[in-house]
Structure formats: structure tokens, C-alpha cells
């Protein structure tokens, strides 16, 4: 089974504030579409990592809205993050949607997910995400990366300590 999948690739475009990712799956495009549009299936994998996802709104049609809340810990001693957007277009093998992290309501990513049939029950996901500025894109890359950012801080600390910065 492992031969049928490969690790995700990522590319941060140099001329557009865009992130592109691809990933192959041992599934048909129809199954991948279901895993993205069936709320129960979607909630099981979407993350962020280590969090439970609760779907609040889920109207899978052109122009329908979606909203989910990801959280961990208890209600009074935990953290919650809400995301929302619109299914702009749900086609046979494509989803075009917007994505917003609610604390930043004016920040919005335009996402296009394409399911390319590779035959033999394999499908390649092409996911691209466009935001309105490079700053926004880089903030996106940093988002939800507490560990990575902390490592970044540690490395910057060393640069500063060395007098390199």
C-alpha cells in the first residue's frame, strides 16, 4: 500500500502569493471527493493536528457555506479555533472554496482542490491556495506551527547571540 502513496509536495510561488501542494492517494477521485464533502468523514482527518473538529455549518453546493471549530482540552480549559468559508463551486472532480480563520475575518484564501484520476484506483490531489499578499501567504505558512515557530525563535536567538543579526 505504501508504494501507492507518496509524500506531499509543496511549492511557494515566487511571483504570486500562492501555495501549491500535491499528494497521491490510494483512492478514486469519487472517494476523495466524498472524504472532502461528507462532513463526518471530513471531520475525521482535517485537523489541525491533535485537535477534534466539530462541523457547525456544511452546505455542499455552489455558493453554500461551511464552518467548523477545531479544539482540544475541555470547554473551560482548552483552546478553540473557528474556520469558515464558502463552497464557491463543487464540481465532479473539483472544489473551489474560500477559507478564513475567524479571528482574522478579512484574511481569506481562495482554494482550488482538483482530483486527478491516475487510474488503478489512484488519485492525485492538486491543492492551491491564493491569498492577497505575500505577507498574508507567509502568515499562512506560519499559522498553527507553534513548534516550528519556537524552533525558528531558537535559531534566531542563536543568530542574534552570534552577532549575525
Amino acid at each position: 500500500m505504501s508504494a501507492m502513496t507518496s509524500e506531499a509536495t509543496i511549492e511557494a510561488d515566487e511571483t504570486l502569493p500562492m501555495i501549491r501542494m500535491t499528494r497521491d492517494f490510494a483512492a478514486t477521485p469519487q472517494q476523495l471527493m466524498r472524504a472532502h464533502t461528507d462532513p463526518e468523514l471530513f471531520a475525521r482527518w482535517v485537523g489541525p493536528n491533535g485537535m477534534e473538529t466539530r462541523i457547525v455549518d456544511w452546505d455542499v453546493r455552489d455558493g453554500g457555506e461551511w464552518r467548523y471549530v477545531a479544539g482540544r482540552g475541555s470547554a473551560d480549559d482548552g483552546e478553540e479555533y473557528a474556520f469558515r468559508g464558502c463552497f464557491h463551486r463543487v464540481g465532479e472532480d473539483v472544489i473551489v472554496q474560500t477559507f478564513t480563520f475567524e479571528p482574522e475575518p478579512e484574511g481569506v484564501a481562495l482554494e482550488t482542490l482538483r482530483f486527478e484520476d491516475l487510474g488503478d484506483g489512484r488519485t492525485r490531489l492538486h491543492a492551491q491556495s491564493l491569498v492577497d499578499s505575500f505577507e498574508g501567504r507567509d502568515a499562512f505558512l506560519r499559522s498553527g506551527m507553534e513548534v516550528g515557530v519556537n524552533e525558528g525563535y531558537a535559531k534566531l536567538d542563536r543568530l542574534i547571540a552570534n552577532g549575525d543579526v
Partner: protein
Amino acid sequence: MSDRLSRVFAALADPTRRDMVARLTTADATVGELAEPYDVSVQAVSKHLKVLEDAGLVSRTKEAQRRPVHLEAEVFDLMTKWIERYRQQAETRYRRLDAVLAEMNEQDNPPQEGTAS
């Protein structure tokens, strides 16, 4: 500390500064050399350089008379690392999706029914 990180990202949010950084990846350059392709004053380029310097993205040699601008590649390693971290997070998410899809496969094609389609 987060101010410093924000400065790195803010410094790179400007297209002229990104272009300057891109040109510095091939070789060090003087302020005059950096200013050449742009329709702006050396002074304006110096301002951009100051932002890049404050963010720790470039440094300028103290001793040499030309004071060439040098790119601090380590800071870019840091950014590459963030992109890689983002990719790894996506990969973790997609592995959960693999598991969901495998389960769907079993339900769609129950193994006890023999031949898989």
C-alpha cells in the same frame, strides 16, 4: 522576538526588496550595483537595504571600501524550514485521510465478497 520574525516577513513582502534579495543570491553587490536596474534613487535603495539589514536578511562588510551587501543565507534556511514544517503538517493530515480512504475502500469493496473490482 516575534517582532524580529515579523520584520523578516515584512521585509520580504515588498517586491523590490524581494528582487534585491533574489539578485544577492548569486553574488554580493554594492548599493550602486543594486540600484542600477531600478528607476529609483540610490537613497531609496539604501532605505530598502536598511529594512533588509534590520530584519537580519543582509549584512554589509565593514572593512572593505565598497561595503558590498551580503545575503545571510541562514535566515532563508529558517524560512525553508517553515515551509517544510507546513508540508509535514499537511502530510500528517493526508495520512489521516489515507486511513479514512482505506476504510471507505473496505466498505465499498468488502473483502469477503471475493474479487475486487
